């Protein structure tokens, strides 16, 4: 049984796909999600092997969801779309398979075989994802998209990951690792990322440590380990 998650913003489409996938008997359905943020949470907790992923979704589309998943959690992906417009052409080689809505049983069986084959070979799924230009944040029952360039710095604490911008702090589901890999933000300490464009000054301390002052006047710690990387990245 392949552990699969279904992601589609339309209720009827989700239900229909669930039924079809169930009928094949090849999958254990972990659940179905109506949006990318919900899906990201489920991927973290359930760790599915396969996603049936709709491309056209509100706020964050299928490609953007992939960009938010950490590499080690990345499942195999079967894209599902109503109309092959342009995106899939370029994506065809990189994706495992894609289905066109309405999905036929015969076509789905082919996908099942393909997925089984791939999983047996044990190839880790790898998708070349786009850099994140916007970081989705929870904001009073809405998802607010903060441009990565607006972020001053990011820190993590017990409650989660927080973005600091000139407009305030925002909570995000994304991990520091994903943010470090997919945005221009740089790691300066285990719990901090900083936007290199927002650094005002770097103060070198004793024993190889340093402090950063951002343009808004926040002081961030720099650990010995990341100071070296920071210097290289900033060409100091």
């Amino acid at each position: 049984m392949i552990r699969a998650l279904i992601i589609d913003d339309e209720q009827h489409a989700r239900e229909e796909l669930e039924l079809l996938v169930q009928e094949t008997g090849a999958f254990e359905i972990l659940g179905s999600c109506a949006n990318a943020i919900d899906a990201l949470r489920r991927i973290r907790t359930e760790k599915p092997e396969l996603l049936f992923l709709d491309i056209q979704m509100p706020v964050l589309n299928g490609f953007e969801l992939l960009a938010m998943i950490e590499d080690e959690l990345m499942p195999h992906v079967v894209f599902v779309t109503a109309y092959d417009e342009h995106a899939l052409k370029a994506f065809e080689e990189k994706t495992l398979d894609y289905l066109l809505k309405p999905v036929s049983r015969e076509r789905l069986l082919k996908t099942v075989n393909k997925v089984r084959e791939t999983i047996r070979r044990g190839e880790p799924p790898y998708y070349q994802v786009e850099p994140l230009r916007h970081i989705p944040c929870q904001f009073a029952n809405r998802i607010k998209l903060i441009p990565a360039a607006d972020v001053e710095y990011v820190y993590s604490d017990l409650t989660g990951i927080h973005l600091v911008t000139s407009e305030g702090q925002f909570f995000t589901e994304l991990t520091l690792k994903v943010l470090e890999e997919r945005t221009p933000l740089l790691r300066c300490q285990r719990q901090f990322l900083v936007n290199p464009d927002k650094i005002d000054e770097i103060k070198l301390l004793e024993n190889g440590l340093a402090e950063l002052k951002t343009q808004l006047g926040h002081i961030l710690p720099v650990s010995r380990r990341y100071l070296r990387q920071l210097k290289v990245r900033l060409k100091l």
Partner: protein
Amino acid sequence: MYLVFELLQQTAVIIVIAYLFSKSPAMDYLSGAKLQRRQLLVLYIIFSLFSILGTYTGLPIQGAIANTRAIGAVLAGLIGGPVLGLSVGLTAGLHRFSLGGFTAFSCGVSTTVEGLIGGLVYLYLVRRKKPEQLFHPFVAFSTTLIAEVLQMSIILALARPFGDAVALVKVIAVPMVCANSVGAALFISMIRDQKRVRDKVGARFSSKAFTVADRTLGILSQGFSSETAREMVEIIRQETGVGAVAITDRREILAFSGIGADHHHAGNPVVTKWSKEALLENRVVFANGYDEHFQCPLAETCPIGSVLVVPLQVDQEVVGTISLYEPKTKLFLNINRSFGEGLATLYSHQLLRSRFEEQKSLLVQSELKLLQAQVNPHFLFNALNTIMAIVRKDADQARELLMQLSNFFRTNLKRKRDTVTLEEELAHISSYLEIEKARFGERLTVNQEIDPALLTLQIPVFTLQPLIENAIKHGIADLLDHGQIWVRAYRQLGLVVIEVEDNAGHYSKPIDTQGLGMRLVDQRIKNIYGNEYGLIVDCEPQQKTLVQVRLPLSEELINDSCVNH
């Protein structure tokens, strides 16, 4: 006394010369514009000859000549400036010198000086920005008077023996001063009158041309047909007063008005050789009535004697002609000839413009038709996917949705008319919205607020669909939940407003086919109703996108709204 009479006779000669001058092409030079070198040369020759003629028609008195030589020199200076005055004065002066006599030298000098005086007055008036005074008879009179008094002084100063000079001046001074001054004044007055007549004719001609253009261009912009041609020939004939006017297309007479209308009918084929020539060779054909007579091939008794045929063309291609006719008893005025030619050029430009407008509007129409016939694949496949899911749970609802889908595509495919009632257009988009409501479930609510009086309003077909599609695709589909669409139709300040609003506020300058649809809808409304109507988009990011269609409020709806409110 005898002398005064003789000199008066000479002034008669001057008037004749002035008359001839005013009829010559040289008259055109006196328009007030700065004179060209060529024109100055022509004036130099004319006034020199005029001045020399004054010497020859003079009377020999006591070894000298009483004459009107001064007029040519002074006027040359007045009209052409110091250089021309001096040149004419010197030429006539040298000529006088060559004739000999005891005043030969003094007269030669004084004529030159007189030309110069005219030129100085010219300079003075031009510098004082009063050039129109140059053609005032009083100015000519005074200038010549002063010049002649000066001449007498010069004779007294230079001619020897002095005694003879005094005796001569006593005899000729008064008659010559009078005759020359009066002669110059008469000459100028003659020219001035001719100038006035010409200006008046020019002004009347221009105003007539403007009236005709103004009255006919609007008619022509409705198209080149026998109806518009009929109105146009009437106006042209009224305004120009020619015997008859005709407009033809390439094959037949579209309209004819005036003399000979009993046998020249609209609908007759083009038969006269003049019209055929104009059509075939694309040039103006003119039979003036005396070198070449118009001969009517239809009736012996046709009163028409002369004709001007001007081709009407669009893009170098002849599409018809305008003909002006005069009866045998009347001359074809030159002014009507240039008028006819100008009018045809104007109409040709207007026809080109109309054709351009028409093609532009046709293009918009056909693009819209194409867009309308195109199946929007996203809509179709999502709809089918939704219905397939619903079939499992609720066969009746699925049936209902399939019905809506087939209605929607049927209307899109078979609409032949250019306009539909608002009610029909609303029914069409409601099929679309029913399917989208099933697809989005609770994520979409549709609200309609329609003024019932507007349901019968005729609107261009396919006006609302692009707006609704846009609101769904770039609005509702982008919202996680609580998507709302409002469709409203109401009357406001002499307008009919039909609007579609969504609560997404995601409108951005559209570049895809949906945006093309909205642009075409806007373009078509502007083509039909005018630039003050069309689409208006108002977007508050994250709040709402409001697209308004503004149409003119028709008469009956205005009355109706008065009753209601």
